[in-house]
């Protein structure tokens, strides 16, 4: 037998052996983007981790297949009229070791989430809970947090003020009730296979760092009958090209590593039925340094820079993956309905350029007095292409751009320190609510601290919108806040992100969702 024939023959023999040993049929192979750093849902930092922890730990409030909120471990809940007291009724459910899931597991988890030692990245999303900030900064004991369990099936959460996004926050992976009985006993080793106890549709079967994480169906999950998959294996594949190869060879059913930009058209043409592109709650924009003394402290310059950038050229000709040109700050896919828009959006490019040049002349710049400007971006081919294009679009304004490319850690540190004039920024939602975006530019928010933006009226609008519970009234307030930011030209929005994943044609129960959450419990493999 020639070598050529030998290899497939041996492979076939191997496959046959695997099937004879009774390997489960309905297991999903997932290219998961990166290696999880932790399976402790309160210590995760990225989607490659929460995709796994969500399958292990059910939240009080869960996501449906389309990304909308549905009851999870909480069967029902009631919100007091003033919006500050949330009462959850937990369903009769058990941990995978048979222990009941009680309201005190939820209390334990929320106290642990806000304890300083946990060092949770998103703890500030829960600062609306009574005493949460004091607990998180070590000024109060976790026991003083405004959460209580009057009985095993009832959880009460007291907020200091209404927070319209709060249910969204509770649907986050880190807010999941945790097995107090196990964590008290096992300590930091509680996430190991064989030790970890889960509440979700799956349990942890094996974890081989950099090779795979395997989960298996949890027979004690409260809706176990509705779960189609026997299990799933998450492979950490960073490289989009490698993921594409392994998807094409049939080794992966779903690839979350993205599609290599250079091969997107090829994939669209040849793997069209597998390519799933959908809008994301994520915005790509250029942040302006608005501090006094900076050239961009002048609103005329900011408006001119915005006017001169032709978003469609970037989204259609440079990117071409379906990204939506943006004249706003809150991505249009966000739930909650903000509708801010830069005034010039519908004008012709020529009219915009003329006005931009006039504004620059007014501000004292032009071909004779060029404005030198630095534009920072982190290392990535697409960021570079966009930066070069934007610099070319600014050239007719007399703007001379100095491009500064640095690795991610250096870029983010410079942005955080305000050490930039214009900086590439990608804001990805933590919760599917405009609050997440708007609050970043409000007093103390991440974007406000980086850019030096400060506007008391804007802050007041954001604050009011957070405390307004009527959705329509809230949307109006949020739109007003967003419009203020846009009328100020405080930033330069470029596009709304899209997600691009590969999903094998036989897979059902998988949808593109704005938060890019795809619960494993609904996924099925059709024959």
């Amino acid at each position, binding site marked *: 037998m020639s070598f050529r024939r030998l290899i497939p023959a041996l492979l076939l023999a191997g496959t046959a052996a695997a099937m004879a040993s009774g390997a489960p049929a309905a297991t999903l192979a997932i290219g998961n983007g990166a290696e999880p750093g*932790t399976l402790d849902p309160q210590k995760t930092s990225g989607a490659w981790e929460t995709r796994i922890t969500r399958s292990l730990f059910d939240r009080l409030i869960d996501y449906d297949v389309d990304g909308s909120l549905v009851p999870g471990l909480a069967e029902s809940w009631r919100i007091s009229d003033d919006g500050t007291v949330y009462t959850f009724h937990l369903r009769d459910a058990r941990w995978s070791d048979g222990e009941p899931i009680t309201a005190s597991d939820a209390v334990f988890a929320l106290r642990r989430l806000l304890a300083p030692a946990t060092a949770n990245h998103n703890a500030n999303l829960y600062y609306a809970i009574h005493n949460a900030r004091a607990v998180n900064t070590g000024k109060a004991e976790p026991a003083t947090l405004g959460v209580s369990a009057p009985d095993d099936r009832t959880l009460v959460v007291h907020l200091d003020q209404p927070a319209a996004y709060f249910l969204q926050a509770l649907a986050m992976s880190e807010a999941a009730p945790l097995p107090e009985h196990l964590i008290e006993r096992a300590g930091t080793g509680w996430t190991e296979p064989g030790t970890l106890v889960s509440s979700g549709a799956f349990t942890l079967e094996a974890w081989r760092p950099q090779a795979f994480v395997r989960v298996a169906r949890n027979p004690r999950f409260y809706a176990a009958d509705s779960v189609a998959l026997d299990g799933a294996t998450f492979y950490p594949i960073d490289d989009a090209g490698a993921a594409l190869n392994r998807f094409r060879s049939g080794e992966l059913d779903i690839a979350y590593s993205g599609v290599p930009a250079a091969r997107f058209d090829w994939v669209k043409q040849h793997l069209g039925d597998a390519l799933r592109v959908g809008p994301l709650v994520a915005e790509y924009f250029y942040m302006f340094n608005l501090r006094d003394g900076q050239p961009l402290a002048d609103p005329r310059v900011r408006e001119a820079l915005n006017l001169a950038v032709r978003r469609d050229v970037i989204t259609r000709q440079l990117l071409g993956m379906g990204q939506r040109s943006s004249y706003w700050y809150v991505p249009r896919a966000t739930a909650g309905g903000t509708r801010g828009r830069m005034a010039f959006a519908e004008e012709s490019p020529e009219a915009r350029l003329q006005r931009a040049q006039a504004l620059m002349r007014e501000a004292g710049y032009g071909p004779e007095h060029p404005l030198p400007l630095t534009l920072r971006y982190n290392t990535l081919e697409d960021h570079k292409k966009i930066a070069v294009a934007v610099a070319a679009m600014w050239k007719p304004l007399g703007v001379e751009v100095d491009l500064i490319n640095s690795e991610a850690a250096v870029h983010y540190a410079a942005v955080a320190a305000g050490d930039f004039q214009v900086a590439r920024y990608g804001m990805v939602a933590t919760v599917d609510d405009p609050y997440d975006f708007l609050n970043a530019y409000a007093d103390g928010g991440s974007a406000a601290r980086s850019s030096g933006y400060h506007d008391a009226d804007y802050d007041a609008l954001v604050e009011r919108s957070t405390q307004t519970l009527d959705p329509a009234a809230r949307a109006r307030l949020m739109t007003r806040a967003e419009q203020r930011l846009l009328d100020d030209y405080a930033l330069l929005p470029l596009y709304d992100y899209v997600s691009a994943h590969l999903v094998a044609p036989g897979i059902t129960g998988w949808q593109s969702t704005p938060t890019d959450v795809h619960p494993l419990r609904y996924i099925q493999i059709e024959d």
Partner: protein
Amino acid sequence: MLSYTLKRLLQAIPTLLIVITISFFLMRIAPGGPFDGERQLPPEIEANLEAAYHLDEPLPMQYLRYMGNLLQGDFGPSFKYKDFSVSELILQGFPVSLEIGGLAILLALLLGLPLGVIAAIRRNSAIDYAVMGTALAGIAIPNFVIAPILALVFGVLLAWLPAGGWNGGAWPNLVLPVIALSIQQIAYIARMMRASMIEVLGSHYIRTARAKGLSESQVILRHAIRPALLPVTSYLGPAIAGIITGSVVIEQIFGIPGIGRYFVQGALNRDYTLVMGTVVFYGALIVLMNLLVDLAYSALDPQIRYD
């Protein structure tokens, strides 16, 4: 020889100490930190994270803490892979890198040495040009180009082998990464062996051996190959240390759970403890491999003796 070995091992301690100290401070001087992300963390949360990893302490204090833990064999927790200590990550990944790297070196020696010898004997012949031309291409084409092409051709288009994945080290999963990793080494070794063979073949003792009337194959096998191996041997020391500690490119493209990625990714993520752990490990391996090379010298060259 034993006392020489012990002496060399003792000398390694200050070397490693210097390497660790320089790496520690270089890493901290680099701008950006482990918690600098797309979105700036609220100051309260950044403070919690820094306290959790003792980054709120003065740098000299952190250095002393690190050295103290290191002396007890504790490399500390990884910043990014929070559920694992750095020692666990290295101990779990190293056998994989060792296996892939070891096989790649073996393959490189098995192919590279004979090719180099043949090219040297048939100097300026068609065979020589073919071998050296291919070797030049092997050196010139980086493995981040070769690896995806191998995966595409043999994994996707021909579907003879898996396009990636480790699968517990099953041999079909080893083939492509080992080939991808060894191509450059084959090329280096073949070129080095050829050059050193040519030099040896021109030396006086080879002329003497031929004058004695030995056949050409005896001349080559008994007198030429052994001394010609010396430069290859000194290349092999650091090369083996480099290859068995993994390759970030090969690991990422083929999904190999080795330790090569930890060095590069650790540095990019500012995962201080992980980078330090790999530096210490890599440094110790280099010292060890260089010692083995020196000991191998005495076996290959009768003029070299360590007493």
